[in-house]
């Protein structure tokens, strides 16, 4: 008779201990993203923020390079590529510059603490119909070594990882 309340308490504790992480997991888990076999990268837009053309081009080219390097997509299309019209499940990456601070390589080398270059970009992934499927703000920066354009490489790596984790067919989610 004594054993019944003890067993019940133990069972209750075990159940609650099991249920709590599951509930937390359910809250933290992102909504399931649609897998895509192809991605199209559009040219970086910087209508509100003045950004030198070399940075725009460098971000665009680095993005394409990193997406190809990460794998997971059968095709990585550029803006305007006619072949993207026939792709069945395509996600389109729109990038809009929200903040840009051009630092100084010389200041970084000399002082170590100043001269940081940083880029803030709003990334929006849409489906073929233009419906948004994922939006995220990412940044790229160069703090110590390297030229200013290295910030574009930093951003491209983060954006490619985001795309890979959410949309690539072989991603672990």
């Amino acid at each position, binding site marked *: 008779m004594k054993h019944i309340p003890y067993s019940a308490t133990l069972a209750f504790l075990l159940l609650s201990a099991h249920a709590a992480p599951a509930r937390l997991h359910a809250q933290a888990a992102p909504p399931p993203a649609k897998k895509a076999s192809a991605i199209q990268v559009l*040219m970086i837009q910087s209508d509100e923020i003045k950004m*030198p*053309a*070399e940075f*725009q*081009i*460098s971000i*665009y*080219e*680095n993005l394409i390079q990193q997406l190809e390097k990460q794998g997971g997509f059968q095709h990585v*299309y*550029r*803006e*305007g*590529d*006619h*072949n993207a019209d026939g792709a069945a499940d395509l996600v389109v990456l729109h990038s809009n510059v929200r903040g840009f601070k*051009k*630092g*100084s*390589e*010389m*200041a970084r*080398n*000399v002082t170590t603490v100043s*001269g940081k270059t940083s880029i803030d970009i709003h990334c929006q992934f849409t489906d073929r119909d233009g419906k948004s499927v994922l939006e995220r703000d990412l940044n790229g920066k160069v703090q110590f*070594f390297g*030229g*200013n*354009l290295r910030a574009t490489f930093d951003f491209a790596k983060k954006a490619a990882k985001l795309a890979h984790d959410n949309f690539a067919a072989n991603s672990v989610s």
Partner: protein
Amino acid sequence: MVMRSMRRTTIFLVGILGFTALPSVGQQAAAGNKVVQITGLVGVRTNASGNLTLENGSLQFASSGTKVSVPIHSVEDVITENDSQRVFRGTFGTLTMFAPYGGGRFLSLFRSKIDTLTIQYRDTDGGLHGAIFTMPLGKADRFKKDLVAQGARTSIPMQDDSGSSNSKPDAAKEKKP
């Protein structure tokens, strides 16, 4: 002991300066259309140096063992900007960061001004590409003029009297850090 270390550091710095001063003088004399492709051309590694020419209606970049051609009519935008870069770059530049008594930081102060030429073009499938080149100061504007004269388009028109990089429109100018 301290004096000896200081003398050694001074000799090290003077040696490096002397070593790099001669090639830079020679480089300016034989510059021509020598450029560095930062990124963008298909099949060319980043930071590859080579020759940029306009031949038979196409923009040609020739590096060691690689030749890439872009038809000028497919060039949608040409933009020139100014920038500066370290005189001591690459592996050697990285090694100078370990020089004693802040010697690397001191050497970082030596910078050379350069022109940047950025182009946007379409491939045969309509895909948009961009390429960035750096070249000696004052060359980019002239190159842009030639490109535009042969059919390339630009979002920032050239001024007729622009002989130097200083006479560019404000939109094209890059703010100095």
